[in-house]
């Protein structure tokens, strides 16, 4: 039966995480860790693992208690609300890949081992088909992976590379690769990872569909995070409209800003809808199509929300001190992760008549 309410379990999960972040990980703390190495807070990471947040991202067979689309959505929406910069996305995607590889992931979900997923390359930013990193017959890897999120603190890399025509998944110990860590303009850390005849372990032969599942799940996470961020950005903006006075009246009394705020609300509702849809389709035959739809729409709406929030605030939102500037950066830069607006529009076009 059609039901848009969260299940009791998920509501509790959401409440737990939201409460934890509100008490322990407010925006000031976030900003104090997000832009300096290691670009997150290791002790809070451990606490979040202990709360079971990460276990909610994996299914029971793999030691978790969730792992379905709506579980992912609930966790990442709460993280987005708080603009959290912990590397939960690489954890989620690693979990999906380790599940597919039937590897134990206890240390991952406990938060004691960091995994990062190395797919993108400078000339293959979004499309698996463009990957050129290679593995030889001895499973030694060569190539460069770019923007490996969480790569700055990873113990292991899960690497997509080609052995002949076959796209496989390998595991590499971080110590064996050349890792160039850096911080991101929207907070959090990443790395360039270079392989030069680097030894690796083959995890999955012909990993195309496992990688697609990890990407679909990652996209749902990003879209949910964006919805969480858009909600907060919108609320702060509307509150500002009520309080800020110009020309002797609250700027929220200007009809132009009112209607633009309504348009923000509309796009947020639409973004929430398509994300719900994509989450419900994860693992199904149309998972990638709906994931692409969601990521395309988020690309458009996140930009609208970020730019309008700044414009309607005026100068104050251009400052580092004001939370909106950080939400806006993350909302914009999410388009650079796991495929941008146009990439996903092209994917939807490719699937235009197949659905």
């Amino acid at each position, binding site marked *: *039966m*059609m*039901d*848009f*309410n*969260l*299940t009791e379990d*998920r509501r509790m999960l959401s409440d737990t995480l939201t409460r934890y972040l509100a008490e322990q990980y407010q925006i000031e703390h976030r900003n104090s860790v997000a832009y300096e190495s290691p670009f997150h807070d290791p002790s809070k990471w451990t606490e979040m693992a202990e709360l079971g947040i990460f276990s909610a991202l994996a299914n029971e067979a793999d030691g978790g208690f969730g792992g379905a689309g*709506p579980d992912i959505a609930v966790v990442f929406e709460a993280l987005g609300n708080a603009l959290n910069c912990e590397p939960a996305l690489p954890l989620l995607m690693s979990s999906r890949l380790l599940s597919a590889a039937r590897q134990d992931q206890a240390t991952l979900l406990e938060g004691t081992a960091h995994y990062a997923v190395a797919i993108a390359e400078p000339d293959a930013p979004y499309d698996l088909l463009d990957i050129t990193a290679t593995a030889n017959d001895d499973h030694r890897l060569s190539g460069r992976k770019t923007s490996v999120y969480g790569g700055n603190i990873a113990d292991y890399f899960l690497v997509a590379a080609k052995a002949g025509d076959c796209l496989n998944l390998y595991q590499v110990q971080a110590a064996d690769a050349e890792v160039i860590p850096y911080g991101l303009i929207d907070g959090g850390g990443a790395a360039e990872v270079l392989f030069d005849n680097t030894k690796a372990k083959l995890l999955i032969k012909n990993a195309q569909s496992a990688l697609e599942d990890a990407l679909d799940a990652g996209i749902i996470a990003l879209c949910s995070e964006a919805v969480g961020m858009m909600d907060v950005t919108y609320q702060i903006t*509307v509150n500002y*409209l*009520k309080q800020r006075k110009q020309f002797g009246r*609250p700027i*929220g*009394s200007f*009809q132009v800003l*009112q*209607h633009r*705020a*309504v*348009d923000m*609300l*509309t796009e947020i*509702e*639409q*973004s929430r*809808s*398509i994300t*719900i*849809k994509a989450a*419900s389709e994860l693992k199904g035959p149309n998972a990638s199509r*709906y994931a692409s*739809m969601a990521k*395309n*729409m988020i690309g458009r709406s996140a930009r609208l929300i970020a730019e309008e929030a700044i414009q309607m605030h005026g100068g104050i939102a251009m400052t580092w001190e004001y939370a909106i500037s950080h939400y806006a950066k993350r909302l914009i830069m999410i388009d650079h992760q796991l495929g941008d607006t146009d990439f996903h*529009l*092209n994917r*939807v*076009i490719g699937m*235009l*008549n197949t659905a």
Partner: protein
Amino acid sequence: MDLNYSATELAFQSEVRSFLADNLPNHIASAVRNGDGLTKAMMDEWHRVLNKKGWLATTWPKEFGGPGWTPVQKHIFEEENCRAYAPRVVPFGVNMLGPVLHKFGTKEQQDTILPRILSGEDWWCQGYSEPGAGSDLASLKTQAERVGDHYVINGQKTWTTLGQHANKIFCLVRTSTEGKPQQGISFVLVDLDTPGIEIRPIRLIEGGHEVNEVFFTDVQVPVANLVGEENKGWTIAKYLLSHERTGIAGVGFSMQTLEEVKTIATKIKRGTKRLIDDPLFAARLAEVEIDLEAMKITNLRMLFRAQERGAPGPETSILKIKGTVINQELRDLARRALGPLAAPFPGHLGEGNILFGPPDTAFNAARYFNNRKTSIFGGSNEIQRNILTKTILEL
């Protein structure tokens, strides 16, 4: 969270689907599909078919002869009707006056009027807007002066949809000029045969006739035709506006239009290439398709909320705004996909008996123009934004 229909709902969906397959006449579905406009005969015919099945007055409570459906059932019914290209039921009697009489009518009004709505004996139309009172309905001026046991009505109504087919009209009229503008308005029922009424057609932008002006000169209406209390008509008007808003997103129509665009773009060629393979056209189409996919869920979420709360909230204005934008964008794509083949005036077609574009597309440009009304009528999108500003943003 579960986006799927229950087994009962799925069974209902099948029932509706086979009913439509068996009972919707081809010539009617085809007129809906090609946008050539339905004749009065077709509308009457479909009205009778639905009434016979008991599925005409889907918004009516059981005690008045409605089927007693849940909001989800109503949604499924609408969805299936669109899928089958069934006509929309002419709403003025069944979906507007009916619910008003259920709530505000006297027993006698209910007993005499409701059956004639169902049977199709009466065709009602709506007398709300006036030349000087569109979005600002409360400023209406049509006057009803009480003289004995009659009101004497003078004034003018406009935008009266399908008034040319109607024999009755329900009107908002001014019975008092005291207090706020909203306070002196009354809701009265008028027989269009009454002396002093003149109906004049308004020709629309694309050349069609679907709305009218209605002029009242010393028209005598029995006081018994007042619905609710005198000077309390505004309450009824507001009730009607908020009462029945499922379907306001027009998701079904947009799905029809999306299919239409895909069909056209697959058939239309630019050289040897199908238009749908043109990256720019495909991108525009895919973007609206994504918006529509989201709107399906937004629509269901609002429906679900309405079901939980027992009434739709002001968020339904979002459905109106975005729903019309999506449909208008699709109508734009349908038109532009045809290129020069969209240029002929439909009234001049057929002279040489040549097919100008793919089948069923002759009216595409006309439909694009006609469809601009959807963001104006029923509370313009600007009014909807004002409503949301007050109710949700609280600005």
